């Protein structure tokens, strides 16, 4: 079991820490329901629809009746919204054919409703290790569908990503996280394309030590991801705090330009770092602050 390093922030408000209701301690269904306005939640494609993965049982893996993705429609701050929550306890939040299509279809339907006069925002609760290995190719194909549907919806209504837990958001779904209008993360949350263990097994322990939690959180952790502008809002793991952050993000609406569209800025950041002598994680924000896009370098 991984655990984040203890918070070093001297400004930590312990009274708030002690009175909070942990968001990540809830299961995915409870998290989705807790975000929505009281009494408005209505689950789509629930467990009794029994749309489980057909690929797990032949491989000797017990399936889950909702395939680990919970889609709940309702209202958020009075406005129509759909919350799509990944259950991290089932297959490490791994996305397969069915769960991926549930996410993609929910985003597409929100886009359709938005075009038809019912503006519907989406919230993605991204606790996932990425594509489920048992459904590798199908899972990857659905990630493409998720990204495509996300791009369709974010032009019309905000798509808000939330990464709350220590599992984090990795693999294919981290690409979807990068496309979100606003990305909300806790200090315990993590975001990365390849997870620490994948990097260690592929490139060796000298490249990344997956047992060094301080190192991992100094690079993938929520505080660092917010400091370096790869996530937008750092929140306490608390139901009320996360719900307020999501509603605020919804109220900001659709920006003129999304983070993933600022290609020049992202390219300048890559160029500012020498892979042979990378900056210390604590210095990265300062290095990137001075990375200025070259003139004429437009997306």
């Amino acid at each position, binding site marked *: 079991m991984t655990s984040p390093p203890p918070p070093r922030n001297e400004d930590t408000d312990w009274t708030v820490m002690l009175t909070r209701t942990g968001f990540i301690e809830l299961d995915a269904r409870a998290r989705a329901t807790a975000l929505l306005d009281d009494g408005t939640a209505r689950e789509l494609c*629930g467990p009794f629809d029994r749309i489980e993965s057909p690929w797990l049982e032949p491989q000797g893996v017990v399936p889950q009746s909702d395939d680990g993705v919970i889609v709940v429609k309702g209202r958020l701050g009075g406005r129509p919204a759909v919350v799509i929550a990944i259950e991290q*306890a089932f297959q490490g939040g791994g996305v397969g054919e069915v769960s991926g299509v549930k996410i993609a279809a929910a985003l597409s339907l929100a886009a359709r409703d938005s075009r038809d006069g019912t503006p519907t925002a989406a919230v993605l609760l991204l606790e996932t290790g990425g594509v489920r290995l048992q459904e590798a190719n199908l899972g990857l194909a659905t990630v493409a569908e998720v990204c495509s549907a996300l791009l369709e919806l974010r032009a019309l209504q905000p798509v808000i990503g939330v990464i709350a837990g220590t599992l984090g958001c990795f693999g294919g779904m981290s690409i979807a996280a990068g496309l979100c209008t606003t990305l909300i993360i806790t200090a315990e949350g993590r975001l990365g394309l390849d997870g620490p263990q994948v990097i260690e097994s592929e490139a060796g322990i000298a490249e990344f030590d997956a047992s060094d939690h301080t190192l991992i959180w100094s690079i993938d952790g929520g505080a660092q991801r917010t400091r370096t502008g790869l996530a937008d809002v750092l929140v306490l793991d608390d139901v009320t705090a996360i719900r307020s952050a999501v509603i605020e993000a919804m109220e900001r609406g659709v920006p003129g330009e999304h983070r993933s569209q600022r290609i020049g800025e992202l390219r300048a950041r890559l160029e500012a770092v020498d892979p042979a002598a990378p900056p210390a994680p604590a210095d990265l924000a300062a290095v990137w602050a001075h990375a200025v896009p070259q003139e004429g370098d437009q997306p």
Partner: protein
Amino acid sequence: MQTLNFEFPADRPPLRRAHVGVVGSGDLEILMTPEQAGTARVRVRTSVDGFDTVWRTVLERFFARHRVAAAFELNDFGATPGVVTLRLRQAVEEGRR
């Protein structure tokens, strides 16, 4: 992975269906659907092979006390007998509301 089927005599159908739990380490998911017939039908899909006798004992004991006429689908990921019994009681309680 192993699939097991059991039937027990039962005469009290729940008021409504219920869903509890997740297929996560040491836990299980239960789907309970009311049935008119006088039996509790249980299908267990478990990640751990070879515990047929333990499952029978745990379920027999539960359905001797709670004669709930329903179809029970258990998707198990290594829950202990204690967790199985707690989840079954939770499902039955939800079905009473």
